[in-house]
Every structure is written in C-alpha cells, then in structure tokens.
C-alpha cells in the first residue's frame, strides 16, 4: 500500500497508484460497512478531532462515523466563525491540539491553505475536509469510488462537472483526481464561474451546457455557491437554472446510462431539478454519502499506519 505523505492536504500531487490503493481500500470498507461488521479496533486509543471552522453537517458526521467505526476516540470542535478573529485562533488552536495529543486532525476552513498552515504547526496527521476554494480531497475520493462502482473504471470516462467551478473546492479535487486517473474531464458553466486558465488544469471548458453534456458518462452538479459570490457573477437563480440547471431535457444529451452526482447540499430548482435529483436509476447522490464514510475510513486507516505507535 503506497501513500506519500503524513497528511492528506490535497489530491494534486498524488499519483495513480496512491489513488488506486485508497479507492481499493475504501471499496473493502464499503463492503464491510454493508455487512454490518463495522466496529473494529484499528484506531483504538487514537484521538481524532474534527475541527470545523465552517458549518458542515454531512462531512463532519461522515468523518465522525468513520472514526468511530475504526475505534478512535472522536471529538468534534466547532469553532464559530464569529469568534474567529481573522484566523488568529488557527495557530492558537494548533498549540491547544498539540497539548491534547491529537493523532488525527480533520479540518474544514473557509480559507484556502489553512490546513497546510496548520499541518506545519501540529504533530497530528492533518486531513483537509475542505479549505476555501482550494480542495476537498475526500469528496473527490468518494466521487471516484461511486463512479468506479457504477462504471467499473475511471479511465476514458467522460465526466462533466457543471456549475460554479470558480468557487468550488470539490471541482478542483475532482479535476485533479479524475484527470490523474485518465478520465476526460469537462467543466461546464457560465464564463464568470469558470476559473482563470482552467484549461491548463487539463480539462475541456464548455460554456454551453448542452454541448458539455453530450455523450457524458457522468454528470456532476455543483452547488451554486451563492454565499461566496461577491457581486453578481450570475444575474439570477432562474436564469442560471434555465441555462445551467440540470433538467431532463439537458440530461437527455448525456449517455443513456449516465449517472448524476451532487456533493450536497442541493439547491433544488437552481442547479438541479428535483425530478433528476430523486431519479431512481440515474441519481447516485445517496450512494455518494455512503461511499463518503468508506473513503474516510480508508484515509484514516492509511494515515494512522504512519503515526508513531505510542505517543
């Protein structure tokens, strides 16, 4: 089993064998979870701290469950944004966590690079659970695992990532992961929500969603990050839905057996039509959540192997 680092800060920089190993391990945890034999003692005596500077229910819960299923002591620390004075508490928190002798630290922060900064100051293995508009590595892993379970592979698949690419850490991690594994990644959105020099990340850029969805194997919708948009990058939600929302008409252009994904939480009627989100055969949104727990177990497992035996 190969993995190159003490931390998981980003997908960028990982190589195909690292990703394949993580996905294989996650697959085995997915099977184990379904069999109901969940409680193991792999992380017995280890402390996992969920440090969330941004509100999140599903990612935090998913990490909590993953840690508990592996036997770790899990502590949730939510740091309300109002008490964070320009991030100064980040390094103060680091010294607190060191004193608590935390082994695995899961962090979500509104600022790109915050987990990397923290990783320089703490002894624990740091897992990035989403930083600003940079990366969300475990989301990309669970998306890849979900795709692999449905399509049997990643290589050669056409994956269309649609919506607010510019403000999406999910998009960046997926672009890196899927590109590294040989998928053909397209990004689809209005020019104002496509990041600068996006094509240099190895993707095809589409501003016409119908062209972007043509023959796609996977349609990945992103949440329209309205709260992050400082100033009218799209004129209205209804205009966005008309041109960039996923409905039956647009989905019909993708392959007939294509799957629909969304990292959640969804804005129904803004980026995705309810009928598509709840589609019994095409939507795999529920399975993404399930794979999330398995992938996070795999990440905790791999990182714990590099931890010192005793503190």
């Amino acid at each position: 089993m190969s993995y190159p680092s003490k931390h998981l800060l980003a997908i960028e920089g990982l190589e195909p064998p690292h990703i394949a190993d993580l996905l294989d391990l996650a697959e085995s945890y997915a099977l184990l979870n379904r069999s109901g034999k969940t409680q193991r003692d792999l992380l017995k005596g280890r402390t996992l701290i969920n440090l969330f500077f941004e509100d999140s229910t599903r990612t935090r819960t998913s990490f909590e469950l993953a840690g508990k299923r592996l036997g770790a002591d899990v502590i949730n620390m939510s740091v309300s944004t109002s008490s964070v004075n320009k991030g100064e508490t980040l390094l103060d928190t680091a010294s607190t966590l060191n004193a608590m002798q935390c082994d695995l630290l899961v962090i979500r922060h509104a600022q790109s690079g915050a987990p990397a900064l923290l990783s320089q100051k703490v002894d624990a293995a740091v897992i990035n659970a989403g930083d600003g508009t940079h990366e969300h590595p475990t989301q990309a892993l669970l998306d890849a695992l979900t795709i692999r379970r449905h399509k049997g592979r990643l290589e050669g698949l056409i994956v269309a990532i649609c919506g607010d690419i510019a403000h999406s850490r999910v998009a960046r991690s997926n672009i890196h992961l899927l590109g590294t594994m040989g998928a053909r990644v397209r990004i689809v959105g209005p020019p104002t929500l496509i990041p600068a020099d996006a094509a240099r990340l190895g993707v095809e850029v589409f501003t016409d969603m119908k062209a972007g969805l043509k023959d796609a194997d996977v349609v990945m919708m992103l949440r329209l990050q309205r709260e992050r948009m400082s100033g009218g990058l799209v004129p209205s939600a209804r205009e966005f839905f008309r041109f960039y929302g996923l409905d039956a008409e647009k989905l019909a252009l993708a392959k007939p057996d294509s799957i629909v994904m969304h990292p959640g939480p969804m804005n129904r009627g803004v980026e995705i039509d309810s009928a598509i989100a709840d589609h019994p055969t095409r939507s795999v949104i529920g399975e993404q959540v399930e794979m999330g727990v398995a992938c996070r177990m795999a990440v905790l497992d791999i990182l714990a192997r590099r931890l010192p035996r005793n503190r």
Partner: protein
Amino acid sequence: MRDLLISDARLLDPATGLDARGALLVRDGLIADLGQGLTAPEGAELIDAAGACLAPGLVDLRANLGEPGQEHRETIASAAQAAAAGGITTLCVLPDTDPALDDPALLSFMIRRGEATGSVTLLPYGAATAGCAGKELAEFGLLREAGAIAFTDGAKAIGNARTMRIALSYARAFGAFIVQHPEDPSLAAGGAATEGELATRLGLPGIPPAAEAMMVARDITLARITGGHVHFAHVSTAAALDLIRAAKQDGLRVTCDTAPPYFDQNETAIGDYRTYAKLSPPLRTEADRIAIVAGLVDGTIDAIASDHQPRDADDKRLPFAQAEAGGAGLATLLAVTLARVHAGDIPMLAALGLLTCKPAALLGLPVGRLAKGAPADLLLFHPARGWKVEAGKLPGKAQNSPFDGRALEGRVLGTWKAGRRVFSA
C-alpha cells in the same frame, strides 16, 4: 570632524560613468576630492578599502515605515538601522501612516525624526488626498513648503479618475509629481495573487494583471490632458511597461520605478501558501519578470525602490488570503539588485544608477553621486561576498522578507552619512 580618506577602492559613480581604482577624501561631511594619487592630510582617518566598491549611498524612492501608528511593525529608528545596514542614506517615506501625512506639522515632525537618527535623510511624501482616503485633495502647497517631495496615497491607488485629474493638474503649480499605486481597485478587490493557473490551483482569489495596465493607461491619458507628471510605483507587468515606454516616447511626463521582488521572483514563490511572498502588487509570471528586467536595461524604469512594507508575524502567520501583503526590503535592496548584475542582465554602473543618481535626479536632490562638493553619503560594498537572507536575523524590526532563505552575493561593508560612519559590517 576628522578628515577621512578611503583608499584602494573601486570608485563607482553612475552619474559620470566612473569605474576606476582610487581614493576618496571626505572633509566636513562633503566629498573633498576623489581619484588617484590622493594623499592623506595630517590627522585624517584612514580606511583601506582593499579593492571593495565605493559608491554613492543609495536613494530609496519608496519605503513604508510603521511610524506613526504601527510602531510594532517598524519604527523610524529601526528602519534607519536597517537602511544603514542596506547602504541606504536617503529614504523616501510613504504618507499612508496613521495618522496619514496630510498636514504640514506631521511632515515637519517626520523630517525632524529622520534628522534625529543621524544616519539617514528621511524625505516624506505628502498625502495626495486627505487621510489618503482618495476624496478631497490634500494641501499640496503647504505640504510642499513643509518638505513634501511629491504626493501619493501610498499603497492605495487613487481610484477616482476625477480626483487623479485634479491632483495631476494642481500639483503642477508646485512642481511636484503624483505617485500612483497602479492597480484598478474594483478589479483588484478581494484578490490575493495574480489571476491565472497558479491562483486557480491554490484556490486563491485572483487579481487580473490587467488591473495594472488599465490604471497606467488611464493615468497616462490624464497626464496628457493635464500636463502633469505621473510616477508609477512598483511596476510589475509587461503590459504596463509597454504603455509607459510609449508614453515616454510621446514626450509625456511619465516616470516609474520597480522593486527587487518584481525582477527577481515570480509568482511561484507563493507556492505552498508562503505569505512572506504575498506582496502588493502580487508577484507575476516569469514572462512579466523578464519584461521588468528588460525595462531596467532599456531605461523605461527610472529607479529601483525597496518598497519596504514592514509586517509582523501576526500579520503573516495566517491563511494566505487573510495575511497582509508587503515585504521588508531595506536590507536586501542592494544585493538583490546585484544578482541581476551577476547574472549578466545589467551592467554594474547602470544598476547602481537606478539606486542612486537616477532617483536623486527625479527628486532634484544633490545626492546619489561621487562628486567634489557633494554630500559624503557613501556606500562601501563587496560585490561578490555571499550571505544568506534569514528572517529573524535581518537588521531592523521588520523581518518579513520575501527573500527569506535566499543566498545572495553582495555585502555592505560600510555606510557613511555626511561623512559620519553609520554602519560597519
């Protein structure tokens, strides 16, 4: 004061093109004589330069000091110490302090504080607008009488075109120029790095490089219609330089400077979210860096300034987008410039000229040259002696060097202010 004879030096005077072995005699704070065959007067202090370079003390066109208002970052005294160690004997300081230098009494205060250091001439800019807030024009006439060398809002761009037009126009009456931070504020708002592939990968909000060229284009147009003199600070992009080059060819009163980071580093220095390399304007692409070097060589750029912006650890030890922009630059000004000389990009005298006589000429000052009768502001340096930039060990208070960890060649051995030694290595 005793006479001083510095012998066996490589005399470098960019103003006259002098580059020859010889000696230099200092009397009463002035350069009394220089050349070959000088003998020491009775009782003179003797310094054997052993072949090291003797040049005019550096004239730094642009530095922000923490004082008044941000003394935890830098004080006039600590900046003077860093300047002396960097060979700087004339330091032009920005007015966007707290309070801003928009009142004649504050300018007089700054000048007196500079005199009190005894080691550096401190020349303040006046605020272009009251409080550097970009709205009402400051009292150019009264500020000029109090010693303002020119007018600027410092690190803030004068964003309103009408305000800039009035400033350029009104400043003509007092023979002063306006220094602009060339960055369109609405395009740059919220940005932390140069927009492009790297910022996209790092997930950092971008500042389009065009924000600089657009402001330069606007202000060149305003200089044309007002007849005013606009000076662009820390130019960092090829597109802006092209506009400035063309404006100069048109005979407009347009000048500019750049700072060492923009000809020595490119945007990759911010990789891994290195906040010490977070600057304003942000570091650019390699193509832009090469264009800045070309601008130094072909004369489009009139001066190299340190663009010293002191920040403390709490300003920098933050996630990248939240960290303060700005780098300490006093102690590294000479050696980073010499790196371009060692690389063969620019001749020694031309590089020194951008640090001495050229900024002095822009300001109409008698310093920045080795000439009989000129103030004995002197810099003795060894061009090839190596040292390593280490944040925490730099002279002065501010340690936020974007060059932290960098090995440089070019060491200041001694600095003299009006004939008095203010630094020795």
